[in-house]
Every structure is written in C-alpha cells, then in structure tokens.
C-alpha cells in the first residue's frame, strides 16, 4: 500500500469509481476489544475529526437522509413524538439523529437548539473497553472507532459502556450498530456522507488539527456576536472525541438534548473490566497454584506394598525371639 496515503482533509470531493485498495485495515488498528496483546499498528495515520457546528445547523436532516442512503439502512416509519425529531431515537437502522430541543433563555427569548446526535468516536472508547468479544470493536490510528459485525455477539455491553448512549443492538440479526464515520469512504480518501451533504457546512470533516482551528474561528465569531459562552465540546473525560461540537452555550451542554457535561466511562465498566477482572483472575490463579501445590505436597498418605513389607520385616526383627 502507498505509504504516502494518509487521512482525507475534506468531505467536499467526488468519490472514485475505479476499484482501489482500502487505506484502512487490520494494520491500522491501535485497539481492539478483548484483545489486550494486540500487535502495534504498522503506521500512524493523521487523526481525523468531524466538526458539528450547532450554531450553523438549520435542522434540515440532510445528514440523516445521506447517512441512511449511504449505509443502505431503512429506518422504520414511526409515530410523531411531538417535535421534528424523526425517528424518535437512534436505532440499528439510524446511525445519526437530529435532536430538537426548545429552550427559553434567561432573556425570555426562544432558542431552538438542534444537535446532530451519533457516535462521538472517543479517543478512549467505553464501548471498546466494555466489549467482551475479541475484535468486535476496533479503533484505527486515525481515531475512527468501528464495529466488526462478524465478531459481534450482540451482548449489548457496548451500550452500557458508551457514555453517550449511542450503539443499538438490532433485534433482527442481534448485532450492534452505530455510526462508522463512513470508514469505507475515509478508506478511499472521502469524507463522511453526512458532512458532504450538509448544505450549511454545519458539519465539516478533515484532520483533527484543522477542525480545531476552524472551531476556534467559529467560537471567536460567535463570541463577537454576543454568545459569551460559546465554546468547543471535545470532552477530556473520554480523551477527546473525533466527532466534536461548537456550541453557543458550551457552559450548559445539557441544554442540547442532555449532552453530558463531563462524559466518562461508567465506573461499573471501568471497575468490572479493570480492577475486578485483575483481582478475579489473580484469585483464580492463586487458587490454581494452591491446588497444584496441595496436590503435590499435601496429599493423603498411602501405604504401598513395599512399605507394608518393610514394616513387617522391621517388626519381625525388633521383636524378642520366640514371640512371632
């Protein structure tokens, strides 16, 4: 593979139609679920990121349409839930969802806060840590966290492990699904389908450094327009994310359909997969070593035929003559 190929820098490009090798594969995996002794990656790709500028979003859902179209998913038709939000929740057939929240600010003005929800592609992914199936969740060196569905056992631990409540297990094939950051497009130098479709450039895609620089410009612009608390949402609790937001109210992320203020991997997952697992395994190990030692050293005495004969001889010799 061409070593000069690196991560794409934009989503505004037309896809290739000539067959080409995927520039993202097993050699780029830096972490895989339930595989602690993974070989280090062969190269380091430049981290990519998708920036979602909530202040520019008009809630048109072109990203949702483009997502379903590209991934060939068919979200079920549902009932109206009282807002423009449709479908009502993320699902195994809907990897991204516009969440509409209505907020009355302290000045008494109405604000319509629309957030594109979906996988954040955490640098420290809770789903991957919680997953017990070897290689079912992988993290590539460009930051994309992807599900390898052939290895998925459908246990749903990733849903528990996710600080953002994103993955959904399909009731049809019992495998877990979420946004892939269009890893198949990124692998041929394209950006995600949602970022390409977005008509207001509220979703932009590129190298993470570029995206942070762009986000900072946007924050400065928002501040100059009176949004004093505008800021970047790139939570450190999960090591930063490869899908991140520009928010006009970065001090209150909960306004945006309960975006967690300080997302962390659940202590249950951290504890169960971390210290509890180590202690448990140590206990099993000690028990095993103990039983072996006990088996070797502390076994019950047995009298062999040889012992019996020797003892008899001894007894015969030590007794006074005539009393046999």
């Amino acid at each position, binding site marked *: 593979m061409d070593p000069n190929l690196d991560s794409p820098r934009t*989503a*505004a*490009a*037309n*896809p*290739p*139609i*000539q*067959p*080409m090798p*995927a520039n*993202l*594969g*097993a050699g*780029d*995996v830096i972490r*895989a679920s*339930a*595989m*602690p*002794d993974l070989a280090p990656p062969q190269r380091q790709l430049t981290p990519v990121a998708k920036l979602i500028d909530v202040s520019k979003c008009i809630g*048109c*859902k*072109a*990203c*949702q*349409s*483009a997502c*379903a*179209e*590209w991934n*060939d998913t068919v979200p079920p038709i549902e009932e109206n839930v009282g807002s423009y939000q449709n479908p009502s929740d993320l699902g195994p057939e809907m990897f991204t969802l516009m969440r509409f929240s209505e907020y009355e600010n302290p000045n008494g003005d109405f604000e319509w806060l629309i957030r594109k929800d979906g996988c954040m592609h955490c640098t420290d992914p809770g789903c991957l840590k919680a997953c017990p199936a*070897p*290689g*079912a969740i*992988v993290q*590539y060196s460009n930051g994309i966290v*992807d599900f*390898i569905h*052939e*290895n998925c056992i459908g246990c749903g631990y990733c849903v528990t492990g996710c600080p953002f409540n994103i993955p959904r297990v399909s009731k049809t094939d019992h495998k877990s699904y979420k946004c*892939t950051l269009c*890893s*198949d*497009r*990124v*692998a*041929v130098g394209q950006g995600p*389908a949602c970022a*390409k*479709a*977005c*008509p207001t*450039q509220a979703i932009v895609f590129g190298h993470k450094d570029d995206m942070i620089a762009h986000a900072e410009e946007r924050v400065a612009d928002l501040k100059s327009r009176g949004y004093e608390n505008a800021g970047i949402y790139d939570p450190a609790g999960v090591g930063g994310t490869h899908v991140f937001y520009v928010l006009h109210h970065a001090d209150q992320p909960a306004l945006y359909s309960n975006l967690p203020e300080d997302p962390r991997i659940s202590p249950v997952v951290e504890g169960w997969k971390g210290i509890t697992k180590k202690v448990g*395994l140590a206990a*099993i*190990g000690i028990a*095993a070593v103990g039983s072996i030692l006990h088996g070797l050293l502390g076994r019950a005495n047995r009298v062999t035929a040889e012992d019996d004969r020797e003892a008899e001889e001894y007894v015969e010799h030590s007794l006074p003559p005539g009393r046999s």
Partner: protein
Amino acid sequence: MNIDLSRRGFLKLAGAGVAATSLGALGFGDAEAAEKAHVRAFKLASTTETRNTCTYCSVACGILIYSKGDVAAGEQATIVHIEGDADHPTNRGTLCPKGAALKDIVHSESRLTTPRIRRPGTDRFDEISWDEALDKIARALKDDRDANIVLKNDAGVPVNRWTSTGFLAASATTNETAWLTYKTVRAMGIAGLDNQARV
C-alpha cells in the same frame, strides 16, 4: 435427547470447563478475533457515474448518479447511489434531505414511469403510450386554442393572447431547455407559464 451423565461425571466436566476457560482468561492461548478488522467494501467501485440535475426544486442542484450494470453490453443498469456533485457551482456537493434521499424516489413503487390517463367516468388511471398521450395533449391544446385565443384587444391592438391554458414545465432544466420551453409556450400565446426560468 437423553444424556447419561452421573453426578460425578457432571462435576468433572464442569470442573474441566472452568479450568479451561480460566486458562484462557489468564492469558494462555491468545484471544483471536474470528474476523480481521476491515471496512465495508467501497460500494461505488466499478460503478458508472452519470451527472444529472436533481429532480426536485428549481435550485437545480448537481447530482452524481452511480449505477451498476453495463447498458452498452445489453445489461439492465440499476441505480445504487446518488450524491451531490462537488464540482457543481450551485450546490458544491451538498444536498437537501430530499435530494440526499433521491435513490428512494428512483426505486419508489409509486413512481410514474409511463403516461397515465383518467378517462371520463372512471375512478382510476390507465397507462397509455407516449404517442397516444402526446396526440391527446396536442388535440386538446389545439381545440382550446382555436376556441379561446384572443387575437385583438378591445382597442383593436393585436395581442394573440391565450389565457385558458396554463403550462407547467420542468424545474430541473438547463439554460437551453428553459429557453426552448419559453419560446415554445410563448409562441402559442400562452400567458400562464411556470418553469425553471422563473428563478
């Protein structure tokens, strides 16, 4: 299915199972992924790319249609994907939600693929051929124009005005088709015209 298993045998098996899985958990025997990490096969590889204009509104965004199947070799082509054309000056690759879901309009069961007519007295549409449809439309236009065209106004000034028929033309058109539409419709004297040229 009956399994003949003594209590002692069951305990032995269970013990062996615990021992084996514990060995695995303790790191003897590498945990291996059944399937190596891979991304989904790029679905546009070896497809045919066709430039077109979005069918919906008069913004006329540029789209790229990707199809499988070689028409030149006599195969039936199927559209597998549609996305915005990044080289198009109108939309630069972006699309609205309807445009982004264009593939569904192509494959929609209720999509019209032939002209249809609802004949007087019926409650359904019947399929007819293009020739038949165009003949019928031409006949109706001619009859209406002959009956209702206004050649001169009250002051005797020639106006050649035909106001009893309106013309609704396609939105997704190029400059050239818009020009042709305008010339054709105005030449007949139709006053009520709506098409791409309005924007």
